[in-house]
């Protein structure tokens, strides 16, 4: 059982809320972190822990775009396509990725490494065009930078070009 393996974490989550159901999103996040998507068995397990019906869990899961009901690639490339990023070239980012990986939005590479999505605003409008890959932001993208990110991820599983604690513009040196 999934949640048994994370007993302490589950208990810590439950202890934050006076009403059990509040722990639903955190537990779903945990399940997705471990399995890569929210499986039916995970939903049933979570329902049991929170004294909910599986249907109550399912109706909540389907509201939130960040939960996947099917497995996706190891790296989820999410390119922001909202107006602010589109003004500075987000549509080109999608084309660059398509060219390099041969996948259209909604598709996964044959090696199951990359899934491409176009998404709405990720709160990075001043440093667009940008994409989120799993937990990390990559901003001010160029074709070269996108290429490097994809190469690094494929080779090392991580990439040093990700954004750290955010500040933009950087203060001028005095």
């Amino acid at each position, binding site marked *: 059982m999934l949640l048994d393996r994370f007993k302490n974490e589950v208990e810590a989550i439950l202890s934050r809320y006076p009403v059990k159901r509040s722990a639903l*999103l955190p537990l779903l996040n945990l399940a997705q972190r471990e399995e890569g998507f929210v499986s039916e068995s995970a939903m049933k397990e979570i329902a049991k822990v*929170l004294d909910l019906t599986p249907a109550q869990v399912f109706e909540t899961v389907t509201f*939130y*775009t960040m939960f996947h009901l099917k497995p996706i690639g190891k790296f989820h490339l999410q390119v922001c396509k909202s107006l602010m990023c589109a*003004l500075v070239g987000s549509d080109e980012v999608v084309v660059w990725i398509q060219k390099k990986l041969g996948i259209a939005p909604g598709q996964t590479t044959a090696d199951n490494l990359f899934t491409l999505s176009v998404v709405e*605003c990720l*709160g990075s*409008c001043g440093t667009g065009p940008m994409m989120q890959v799993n*937990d990390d932001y990559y901003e001010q993208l160029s074709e070269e930078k996108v290429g490097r990110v994809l190469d690094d991820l494929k080779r090392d599983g991580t990439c040093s070009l990700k954004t750290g604690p955010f500040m933009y513009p950087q203060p001028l040196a005095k």
Partner: protein
Amino acid sequence: MATYEKILLKNMEQPGYTGSLADYEGTGGYRALRTVLRDMQPDQVIEVVKKSGLRGRGGAGFPTGVKWGFIPKNHPGPKYLCCNADESEPGTFKDRQLMERDPHQMLEGMAITCFAIGAQTAYIYIRGEFRLGAKILEQAIQEAYAAGYLGVNILGSGLTINIYVHLGAGAYICGEETALLESLEGKRGMPRFKPPFPATHGLYQNPTVVNNVETMANIPHIINRGGEWYASIGSPPKSCGTRVFCLSGHVKRPGNYETPMGITFRELIYDLGGGMRSDKPLKAFIPGGASAPFLTPDHLDVKMDFESVALAGSMLGSGGVTVMEEGTNMVWAALRLMEFFYHESCGKCTPCREGTSWLVQTLQRIWNKRGRPEDVGVLDELCGNIPGRTVCAFGDAAVSPIVSTLLHWRGEYEALIREAQETMPRNKEIPVFTS
């Protein structure tokens, strides 16, 4: 170029400042919390914040002290504070910086707020994509617990204040305060009918204050330097203090700029932002996030305060300013925003759920040169039938890109439709497919 004293970004812009507890304390951090616990009554704190004129920084601009004052004093059960860190209004990226670069500033503000409203528990509802911000906040909270600023008997006062981070999962509407509460209760994030308001029936039907990150970050400074000081900054009496404006789009230097309220859009875009990124002139700008109606170059000298922007026919909203250069098609711009609103409509109210879908389809038809002569009328009619007919303000926001672009650039819609009429085969019905 004028320079302004920064309040919220001051610390983080110092070289070497990491946002750790030691760094924050080194700049006088948590002094306000000590003052409050030692010398003040909750009502006095609320009075100071009322006097400061601070208004909510999330977008609606409701006076913060007044909001706190609505919390019933003699409620028998628990009260809650929720910090709205669901920053997802397109064009806005200030809270992300405030959280990731100086997390203790907002935590101190939250602890003071908890004291003022009598809450023992506070949640930070942070959008699910901000994993880094959530991690930084968790670390900062651990530091604050260890130092006795949070937890049981904080600073020996006998008070208990717990703060927890709660990650969302990718729904714009959860930035609406009652949708946020639904989501925090583990449900679909759909707004509630108001009244009753969260001040009396909020989280778990208990009195609850929901405040934006930037609002919280202002609180320690107001306590330290006084309500009168804060009220003297900006455009008193109604738009006091500074704002962290987020500049994006076709400008040379996009980013976060903190200035007093009341500077002009021209100053922000040209002096701070360096002007347009190419030699093309400015065509349009959005003054306060995607929900705010578009403005034109004629509005560049409008002051950036709540009242002036409202008088100009838009709103200061979340402070996200997006600039578009000449050559940007306004039908395309409206379509891009409309696709956002269509995607993010929670589906509770029919006018919004169905209306945004119709609007996107009609706009796509026009943009793809398949528009019909009556389509502009269709847009006008739809935009008149959504606002005011929904539970939350989303419906009003969703039509603003179209209403405002139709107002200022109706000719661009008509030109695309004319082109469609000229290029479409005559006397032949073009089938229209709807999903």
